[in-house]
């Protein structure tokens, strides 16, 4: 029977991997030795329990617990109305789509508008797109709405890909990763893990500023 390499390993034990790394990097000298030491510190801290676990959640955005996506219209601001306008127009135009070329034209207009709106609203705030949504003047309801509309836009892409094939509609293929990035950013900043991370960071800041 063929041996199957298992990714999940019972032998993947923190103490063991730390020892292995340490012995592997021990042979280095000079500057390399200093860097090796930092690498092993990073490993040791990474496997440590406690606060690091909070940090783990940061990268695991897809697993982050997201609050209810449905937004309450009463708490929306003008900052997010673009998301609804664009998606509603795209939905309305879907009935006219007969070919892959039509679909490409639709996404070339509405999906690109959607992505550009998001990017444009971010570019004066920071070069880092994934950065504090509240600084853009969005309420919590706004971000829920944009997430909801992003999901609906993704639904349009799914429908188009299902009809014509993803490889036939270039804007679907090219735009989908950017759309997913928007959703990941919002999901992350709406999550409990993000809230806890912010609290930890605030506490850390206060501790450091006391000194």
């Amino acid at each position, binding site marked *: 029977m063929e041996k199957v*390499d298992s*990714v*999940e*390993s019972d*032998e*993947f034990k*923190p103490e063991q*991997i730390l020892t*292995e*790394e340490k012995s*592997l*990097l021990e042979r*280095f*000298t*000079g*500057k*390399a030795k*200093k*860097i*090796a*030491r*930092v*690498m092993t*510190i*990073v*490993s040791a*801290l*990474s*496997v*440590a329990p*406690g*606060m*690091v676990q*909070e*940090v*783990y959640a*940061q*990268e*695991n955005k897809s697993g982050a617990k997201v609050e209810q996506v449905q937004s309450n219209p009463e708490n929306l601001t003008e900052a997010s109305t673009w998301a609804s306008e664009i998606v509603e127009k795209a939905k309305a135009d879907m009935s006219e789509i007969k070919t892959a070329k039509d679909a490409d034209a639709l996404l070339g207009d509405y999906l690109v508008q959607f992505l550009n709106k998001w990017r444009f609203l971010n570019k004066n705030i*920071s070069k*880092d797109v*994934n*950065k*504090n949504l509240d600084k853009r003047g969005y309420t919590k309801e706004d971000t829920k709405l944009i997430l909801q509309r992003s999901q609906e836009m993704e639904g349009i892409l799914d429908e188009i890909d299902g009809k014509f094939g993803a490889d036939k509609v270039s804007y679907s293929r090219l735009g989908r990763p950017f759309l997913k990035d928007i959703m990941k950013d919002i999901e*992350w900043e709406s999550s409990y893990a993000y809230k806890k*991370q912010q609290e*930890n*960071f605030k506490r*850390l800041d206060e*501790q*450091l500023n006391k*000194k």
Partner: protein
Amino acid sequence: MDNNLKKIKELIEQAEISENDQKGLILLFANAHDEDLQSVFDLFSADPSWISKINNNYKAKKDSLNTANSEAWKRILEEEEKQLEGING
């Protein structure tokens, strides 16, 4: 006390990595004893380009640990060796 952490935090906040990555890295080092962070401060202050490299190293390790992926961990160690050999060489 916590002198190294404070200095490391300032260096990380100036680094060309995302704000979330900055925070993640600072919180990681906040778990260490301050005296253990001397080598981290020495490296980051002498050559800030290592902040980004160590950040990538940390993220890769997190992914590997989160999924208990020993193969990925081996690849990280190989990459570390390669980086360090480049410096020693």
